[in-house]
């Protein structure tokens, strides 16, 4: 039986087209990241993605699947990319490989391969690293300004092999980190540091993620439901908290521009396998992820709660789908 059975014509779309379009949308933010933090992130990406593809090939071989079509579809490529840009670029290489192992092998192949993973693979890897190596994960390299020389500083490409210990290089806390510390110490925020005095690196990267995300929406790779519901939900809940106590809780714009909000909204929760399939379900998912994120950021133990919020809501996806099935044509 050939697949010439109806229909005989097909739209020019495949899984690899989808995945590589998403990668393409991530490139502007990557350029910004290199400009601020150096070529280290590119080195991380090259090593990490190669390792991820090797891991994927080994898993496929063990499960008796043909390797070429599955490697070509770019899902391991994208998972590795998302994980690597979520962790600090000064992470030692072995930490990154552990994270990739959990993302590709445990979270994806142990559950049945692509299409069968209930949890977001990149977030599982990130959550494992965050819990196992908290000190490394919260030490981001510092960046004051965009430096074009960073693009030519090729020695930085392989600095991951030299930095076995994190204290190498200047590291500093992210803005979310700083407010978490301030919350614990009980200090009012405004005294800690100034907010919008300068457009820091993270806010510029957030804007590039937003641009990439809008490109994906125009190309119809993702629908508006998930990103818009997450962004509005974070905005709304942080706004409410800010009104309750403006000294302790940051304003909503801060929450939107810092942390991984736009990255998560357009690239992470839109992972098709682990998010709901119904449109109303997507809106509910986005709202709940936003709520949990805001709670973790302001009351929880970790600076950025997106990873845990996403993983937590992944558990509820089948239930959400069951209750949001739309009506079929002709039925009232």
């Amino acid at each position, binding site marked *: 039986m050939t*697949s010439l059975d109806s229909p005989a014509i097909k739209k020019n779309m495949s899984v690899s087209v989808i995945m590589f379009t998403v990668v393409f949308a991530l490139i502007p933010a990557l350029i910004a990241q290199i400009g601020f933090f150096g070529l280290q992130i590119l080195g991380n990406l090259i090593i990490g993605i190669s390792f991820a593809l090797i891991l994927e090939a080994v898993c496929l071989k063990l499960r008796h699947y*043909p390797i070429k079509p599955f490697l070509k579809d770019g899902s391991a490529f994208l998972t590795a990319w998302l994980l690597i840009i979520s962790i600090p670029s000064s992470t030692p290489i072995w930490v990154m490989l552990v994270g990739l192992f959990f993302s590709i092998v445990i979270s994806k192949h142990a559950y049945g391969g692509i299409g069968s993973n209930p949890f977001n693979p990149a977030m599982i890897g990130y959550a494992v690293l965050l819990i196992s190596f908290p000190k490394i994960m919260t030490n981001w390299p510092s960046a004051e300004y965009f430096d074009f020389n960073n693009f030519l500083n090729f020695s930085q490409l392989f600095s991951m092999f030299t930095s076995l210990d994190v204290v190498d290089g200047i590291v500093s806390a992210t803005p979310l980190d700083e407010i978490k510390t301030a919350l614990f110490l009980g200090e009012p925020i405004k005294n800690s540091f100034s907010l919008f005095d300068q457009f820091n690196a993270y806010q510029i990267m957030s804007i590039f993620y937003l641009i990439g995300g809008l490109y994906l929406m125009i190309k119809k790779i993702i629908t508006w439901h998930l990103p818009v519901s997450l962004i509005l939900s974070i905005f709304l809940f942080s706004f409410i908290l800010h009104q309750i106590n403006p000294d302790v809780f940051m304003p909503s714009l801060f929450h939107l521009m810092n942390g991984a909000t736009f990255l998560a909204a357009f690239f992470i929760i839109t992972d098709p396998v682990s998010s709901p399939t119904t449109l109303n379900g997507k809106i509910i998912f986005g709202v709940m992820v936003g709520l949990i994120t805001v709670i973790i950021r302001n009351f929880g133990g970790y600076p950025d709660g997106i990873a845990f919020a996403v993983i937590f809501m992944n558990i509820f996806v089948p239930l959400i789908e069951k209750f949001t099935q739309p009506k079929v044509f002709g039925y009232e």
Partner: protein
Amino acid sequence: MIEAILITLSITIFIGLVLGYASIKLKTTGDPIVDKIDKILPQTQCGQCGYPGCKPYATAIANGEADINQCPPGGDDGIHKLADLLGVEYKPLNAEHGEPKPKSVAIIDESTCIGCTLCIQACPVDAIVGAAKQMHTIIEKECTGCELCLPPCPVDCIDMQVIPETTENWKWKYPIYKIKQQN
């Protein structure tokens, strides 16, 4: 310490009373299990399971005397359904009771039939029409393919014919675009 015992005891008694009340008041009078099993069986009435018909086999399964994998006409599908209904493990078909065969109907060779009525007495669903010293014939629509009429016939004039696939009973097959090699 004594309060703890009293409280736990009273909770236990309360829950026990509620459960007892529920088991009496909310008792369901649905299908007994024998009927549910019988609904799954294919009603060929062939006796290959070792019991004289589908209802006795269903009763035996319900009593625990028979296993669920003794029915060849029901096939693997039937065993899976029985395993789901009774909450037991699936077992492959027991080859002692026969192999699954394609659906067929019996046909009498009218030139050889002597009109002895032995096959009429054997048919479990009365699908054979005839009388003593008169021609016998099988009602094709009612024949279940159980083959119980073949042994009694003294002149061996009954044959089983596989029902051919025509455009009337053709159905679409399971798409076989397998990507995984079979182990």
